């Protein structure tokens, strides 16, 4: 009897998430008992590393299993472990690990080093796990909320800073609003299918015909919720404020992992055999194309005039979401692989760029204005050169990783014969260069203004090296990484 509720199979499909949740709780408990002194709290990293180690092991076993016997579903089809889920989970893992490793010095400098920060990171990752793995409306929704709730708290983690509080409030209100839309859409879908499983929903939607108003309603409300989560225009308004106000480490995590998870979510609903909306491509294709172009326009044009580097990167990340959406607009295999590749390279380059900003935060200095970064080459050439690599990669200049992401997106658009979109997308790449190179100019040409040394730490050095090396390695020898990204199509 018990077997049908929780079999070994089921266990295998969620073990990484279980590990994350358990260690997250363990941190909450042991933080009180073991580390009353804030200065010792960096040892909590051991828990994080252990959690990620177990998670990684679980993912590794899942990967091996899929490679030999194909995708595996559990809990009566509410979760599904496939190449797609494993690929995205690796990305969440890398992001979570890198972010936690650099956080302690930042939080100490900000005077807000608390244990729950690390458990929130793990809880958020646990939510992401279900966004990538879930194949059931309720599972997906719960995963989304788990992730979002953790982020609401993390964005407002700097309790004494107005900016952080404001950001959290904005993010919470708009986030709740969009979750409402999403839940409404899901309820309509449930009404159509009398089931929450994606496969059944997809079948019911397919039997309804293309322009059925109820399906249309579900599509629109769900898309609004999803586009909000990926920060696509016109639902991007929360992103710059939340990104700017949040602790920079959280911004990095939010911009990378949360975005990747939202894209995984989006793809689960819009692409593939069990996606409810895959058959409605004719309906949402043109709309999504417009959304993608508007997103790139808003992101790129708004970034041009920013004087705050963090905010500039926030707008740039909006424009990157536009590029990723284009992969879905193209809708062919290469486009979807392109999204996977883009998400992968984006993880390293965007994390890297934010890490440099993290190191600019010192005891009394916020350090995210353009002036703070000026003359960085004279002060710490290593950071400046790494930042240059990340920015070149964000701009898509070969031989950095970012070029490959753009390459796939452009090629998928050409394969889909969307030449106009391809031209627009390429020209925005030239616009992007302008604002990225404002940062470069500031670092390499402008005079040094702020002489206080960077806030480095062992974790920071490791994380930066990893991001930098990966950004270059994926760019110079992408073969193994491209193969990995292609496994995400297995489902």
């Amino acid at each position, binding site marked *: 009897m018990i077997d049908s509720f929780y079999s070994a199979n089921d266990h295998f499909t969620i073990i990484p998430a279980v590990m994350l949740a358990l260690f997250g709780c363990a941190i909450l408990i042991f933080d009180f008992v073991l580390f009353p002194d804030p200065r010792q709290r960096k040892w909590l990293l051991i828990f994080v590393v252990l959690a990620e180690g177990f998670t990684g092991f679980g993912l590794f076993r899942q990967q091996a299993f899929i490679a030999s016997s194909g995708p595996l579903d559990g809990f009566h089809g509410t979760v599904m472990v496939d190449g797609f889920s494993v690929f995205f989970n690796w990305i969440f893992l890398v992001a979570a690990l890198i972010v936690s490793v650099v956080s302690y010095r930042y939080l100490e400098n900000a005077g807000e080093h608390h244990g729950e920060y690390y458990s929130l990171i793990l809880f958020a990752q646990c939510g992401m796990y279900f966004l990538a793995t879930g194949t059931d409306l309720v599972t997906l929704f719960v995963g989304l909320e788990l992730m979002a709730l953790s982020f609401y708290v993390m964005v407002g983690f700097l309790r004494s800073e107005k900016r952080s509080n404001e950001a959290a409030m904005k993010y919470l209100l708009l986030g709740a609003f969009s979750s409402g839309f999403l839940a409404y859409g899901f309820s309509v879908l449930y009404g159509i299918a009398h089931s929450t499983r994606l496969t059944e929903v997809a079948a019911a939607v397919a039997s309804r015909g293309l322009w059925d108003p109820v399906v249309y309603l579900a599509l629109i409300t769900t898309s609004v919720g999803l586009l909000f989560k990926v920060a696509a225009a016109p639902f991007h308004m929360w992103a710059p404020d939340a990104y700017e106000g949040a602790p920079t480490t959280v911004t990095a995590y939010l911009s990378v992992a949360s975005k990747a998870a939202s894209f995984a979510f989006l793809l689960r609903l819009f692409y593939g055999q069990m996606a409810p909306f895959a058959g409605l491509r004719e309906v949402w294709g043109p709309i999504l194309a417009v959304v993608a172009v508007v997103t790139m326009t808003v992101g790129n044009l708004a970034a041009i005039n920013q004087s705050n580097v963090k905010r500039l990167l926030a707008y740039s990340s909006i424009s990157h979401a536009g590029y990723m959406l284009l992969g879905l607009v193209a809708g062919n295999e290469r486009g979807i692989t392109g999204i996977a590749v883009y998400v992968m390279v984006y993880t390293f380059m965007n994390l890297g760029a934010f890490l440099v900003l993290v190191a600019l935060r010192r005891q009394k200095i916020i350090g995210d204005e353009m002036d703070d970064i000026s003359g960085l080459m004279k002060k710490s050439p290593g950071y400046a050169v790494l930042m240059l690599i990340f920015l070149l990669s964000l701009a898509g200049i070969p031989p950095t990783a970012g070029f490959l992401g753009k390459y796939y997106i452009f090629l998928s658009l050409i394969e889909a014969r969307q030449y106009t979109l391809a031209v627009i997308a*390429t020209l925005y790449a030239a616009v992007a260069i*302008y604002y990225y190179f404002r940062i470069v100019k500031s670092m390499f040409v402008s005079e040094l203004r702020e002489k206080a040394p960077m806030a480095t730490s062992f974790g920071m050095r490791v994380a930066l090296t990893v991001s930098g090396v990966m950004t270059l390695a994926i760019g110079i020898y*992408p073969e193994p990484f491209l193969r990995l990204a292609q496994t995400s199509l297995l489902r």
Partner: protein
Amino acid sequence: MDQHLLSIILLTPLAGLLVLLFIPSKSKNLIRVWANLAALAGFLVSLPLLQRFQNGVPGFQFEERANWIPTLGVHYHIGIDGISLLLVMLTTLMGCVAMLVSWSGIQDRTKEYYAMFLLLQTGMIGVFLSLDFFVFYIFWELVLVPMYFIIGIWGGPRKLYAAIKFFLYTLAGSVLMLLGILTLYFQHSQQFGFYTFEISELMKTAMPLNLQQWVFWAFFIGFAIKVPMFPFHTWLPDAHVEAPTAGSVILAAVLLKMGTYGFLRFSLPLLPKASMDQNIVRILAVLSIVGIIYGALVCLMQKDWKKLVAYSSVSHLGFCTLGIFSMNPNGIAGSVIQQVNHGISTGMLFMVIGVIYERRHTREISEYGGLAHVMPRFAIIFAIAMLSSAGLPLLNGFVGEFTILQGAFEANWAWAAFAVTGVILGAAYLLWLYQRTMLGQVTNGKNLTIPDMNFREVAMFVPLIAWAVWIGIYPKPYFDILRQPVQEIVERVRPGYFNGNQPALARNTATPAAAQAGGAR
């Protein structure tokens, strides 16, 4: 060694760069010496090419090929033919000279400066060696970043504006070119069922004329901005004027050639139908002629010495593109020789300006006058550079321009008639410049005490002058080197051009459309 010769040439500057990074930035002289040695080594390793290159062998020589990214069909495939041989030699030599030019001009952030130059050198050589479109694109973009820094950090007063303008312009062009590349790549995969970026493979792709034309325009924007052809030239004066001397030298001598080389290596052979399309050829020839005349006219009214030389590039590169789009052996061979010539003579002119700028820190032509009395050595060298640029017989410029005009005449006599005015105007603005700056009495007291050129400064001109004289007096080896690759290009664009029984002239004087019809027959 032969089978890896090109890789060695490509990687020597990079190896120099790696060692350079370990030299402490305080020991500036050591950095200078090392960078110069690295560039010299780069030139020396390229010399064996001259000896071992075999004229008349079809296809590419010294080829190297290895898988790089199998998923995408990218190969590390490099090789040279006659055209790239000349441009590679130009690059390695100019790289060497540019290092020498920078010796006393660059005092600030020396290490970064030389590091950027060595990186630039690798990028430029890579562009001329690549036989795989993906690899080509990587090197093509790699060149932008160091050049941005060279202009942006060590340039003149408006350096940042010039640097970002250069970067944006070129990048906008090259991303559109990327779309063209990807279209071609996709078409090829549709027809043959596998993905590859190799040019020899992509050449087999059969595309409808309409699509070829689109791809051609995509390539055109990328290459034309780089050349720069007439409406896209506005970045050039800014970049040239603001760049440090060595930056201008490299920019003029090598970077611009990447555009013309792109036309020869990619546009023409990969898209033969579009390249022979009557309208396209006509538009490009007209743009070239407009560039020639417009550039020359703008030169006539310049008050800034460096800007004058910068605009003269627009005019001279117009000749190069006109030669290419004449689509006959004379035009194309002349174009390649003129590319080398332009590298030599404009390189020298920029170096001349560098020499005087280091002494007086102004480029206003009106500030000078009668310098020949004060600096006799300088006057002689400037005269040679100026005359070689103006196309005086027995110097290099004449050979190139003459052959191009011959080719243009074969294609359409009106083109040649218009282009010839560019030669006249060219002589006018250069001689007038010389007269205003060097001849007459010394009018400005500050000029009386300028020291003449020292040994290093003379030494950096010697190889270039020698080369200019060699091409001017005995250009036959160059035409021999170019005959085979040029024939291949013409044969590709106009099949049957060489084995028709009629005398070549009868067909060549006709318009391209008629010639195309002749080729089709």
